[in-house]
């Protein structure tokens, strides 16, 4: 738990740093009010000094991709934890009960397609996906507390951590996309229509929970991959990152 908490704080401050740099460069004021430890505060101050010069987008994307990598790791762990006590017996035999609520979004499905998408479009896709998962994460977080699963506490804490990362990453990408042009700012709306509760009986609840987690894992993987593609495009001068 302590490790998670520290990771949580690390993620929060890192993303807040990104956000603060960019926002303050535009407005000139308004520090973030996140939890910032002493050394992070110093780093933030340093960045504030340097921020209104051209902070390379590559650095910002690097931070963003680190955040998304953490998110994907959390979602993978969640699905694995879910499967240890709820073998996908039923899911093995049948298709998904439904399609993910984000499946309407046209995303590249393989490498060639992904490498042909422009930076702005990729950023738009990423932001749309992030935006789409705000509400479902709330539902997941609420349901995890009463989940009929032995590992519900661990699952619940991971979901909360995911929520924080998602929020800070979204804020950072809002500012980052502002630097990339109007196309990057456009997002698609993907509302979640699955209702606020997951079901009545245990199996239904677990099924739906598992289904949502698998959708989340997929979308977090997409977000991570797209951001890393963007990062490697932006840091041509630093080949050690890619």
């Amino acid at each position: 738990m302590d490790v998670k908490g520290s990771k949580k704080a690390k993620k929060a401050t890192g993303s807040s740093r990104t956000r603060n740099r960019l926002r303050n460069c535009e407005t000139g004021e308004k520090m973030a009010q996140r939890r910032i430890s002493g050394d992070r505060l110093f780093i933030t101050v340093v960045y504030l000094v340097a921020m209104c010069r051209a902070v390379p987008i590559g650095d910002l994307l690097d931070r963003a991709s680190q955040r998304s990598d953490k998110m994907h790791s959390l979602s993978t762990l969640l699905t694995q934890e879910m499967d240890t006590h709820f073998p996908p017996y039923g899911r093995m035999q049948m298709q998904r009960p439904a399609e993910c609520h984000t499946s309407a979004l046209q995303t590249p499905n393989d490498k060639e397609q992904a490498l042909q998408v422009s930076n702005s479009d990729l950023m738009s896709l990423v932001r749309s996906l992030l935006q789409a998962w705000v509400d479902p994460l709330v539902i997941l977080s609420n349901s995890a507390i009463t989940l009929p699963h032995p590992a519900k506490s661990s699952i619940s804490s991971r979901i909360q951590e995911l929520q924080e990362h998602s929020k800070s990453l979204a804020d950072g990408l809002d500012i980052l996309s502002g630097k990339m042009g109007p196309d990057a700012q456009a997002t698609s709306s993907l509302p979640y229509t699955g209702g606020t509760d997951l079901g009545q009986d245990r199996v239904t609840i677990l099924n739906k929970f598992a289904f949502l987690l698998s959708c989340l894992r997929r979308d977090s993987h997409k977000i991570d991959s797209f951001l890393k593609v963007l990062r490697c495009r932006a840091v041509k001068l630093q080949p050690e990152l890619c």
Partner: protein
Amino acid sequence: MRTHLSLAMLCVLSAAGVCSSTSAPGRPSLLGCRSPEKETFSCWWEPGSDGGLPTEYRLFYMRENLRGVHECPDYVSAGKNSCFFDKEHTSIWAEYNLRVVATNALGNASSDFLINDVMKYVKPYPPVNVTVLANSSTPSAYLQIQWKSPPNVDVKSGWVTANYELRIKQNGKEWKNVETGAQNVLNLYSVDPGASYMIQVRCKLDHGNWSEWSNTTFVKIPKHHQIENRFWILVFAFALITLLATICILVLKRKLLLSLKQWFLPPVPGPMIRGVDVQLFKSGRPEDVVNALIGNQNFPPMMPWTDQVEEYLLVSDSDAWQLTDPCKCHKKKENLTIELHLESKIQHRKSTPGQNAWEKAEESKDETGDLESSDVSQSESNLSNMEPMKLLIEEQGCPSTEKAALTNVIQPLTNTTYVEFQQRENFWDISPTQAEYSRVKEVNSETILILNNENILPGSDVQEQEVNGEVNTPDDYSRVKEVNSDLVLLQKHDSNDSYCKKKEDHYTVSISQRPTTPHEGDHSKGLCSEMVESGYVDSVPGFSVK
């Protein structure tokens, strides 16, 4: 016969039975799929029983967002009982519904569905080209391990992100795992020289599944650097011993050390008076002190005074004296001069003669100074003998005219009052404009008065005289009061002055090389201004008279 028939029947039946035991194939089972680079994937299945007939296996799949049932595009590339999906047929974030159907002449059988997202199948091959270098440079040896990412993995574009893990094992010990993140090199420092190690590396893509461990790489760390270390240790030890020996030699031979020290840090010379030996002062003898300060004096040997010496002082108060003095050095109105005529026999100072002489000086206290002793005539005859006198009294500036001065003195010297003294030539540089007065320079233990012909600025004297209301009393002039056996010179103060009386016996004259310390002289002068007109003698650099 029957047995033969039965046997034949059995044979036929058995043959028929073999030939006829065919059935539909058993159900194959899908083993799994794998995508090594997140661009293609392959699936494998295990066939069931084939039912005795040639069986054909076909794989069908359905894909999310793709209508219809499709068959495996490639059965060959991935080996037997496999299906290979190339890049065109692979969609990463889509679920594939796979099944294998075994078909033979009698029927078919289908396996279970395998539904999964391809991203769950991502499992790369192990890293390649694992090279290990045992770098044995000083100070410590370390292992330099390098590897390359698996083939076909596209890390450059950012499509996949590889994370590596390394494990190392020393012979006889356990594996140690080291996470290296995304880098391809690792320097391992915690190695023992001379030991053998086994190293393996594996990787994973995008939080997928770990690959298998790479082939083991063996390495042995050489020991020769130990010899190098020993060599350097010997060199350093030798240098250290040499240094210590040098220090010991320097310490023991202090002279050498001191000479070295002096060579490096020469001492700063302190103040020094030329010709003066500081050690002399420490002995404490006043005569030594005075000798040292005044310098080496080639005073003539002293002659004892005899009782036969008649001494008298002529004190004159007239200006005529001065005018007739060819070497007049002074322009004061009233000059108190004391003439001391000493017989030639005066060679040794004794207290009584001295007293007599100075008593005469006493008598010359009167302002008129009209002292004419009855011995004037005698003085005349004695004048000629004055030259060889060995008194240490010096005349100021008029070496050649002393006789003349004396003759002048014999004349009524009502107003001139000064003392003539013989002069020693080789005492000091005497300028013609020097003042008429001699100064008592030194008094040694044998009560010899030494007068010093220091330059006395007449102007200053005049000023002082005018200021102080005294007559002819430069700063460091003091009046000779008395000459005792033990003392050389006492300044006599006016008896009217009570203060001066006290000073009779305790007059301290300060040692002064220049007339710049008029303190005591002033002091005495100020108090005894009335006595000025009588004879006076320049004060000697100070020493207390007891």
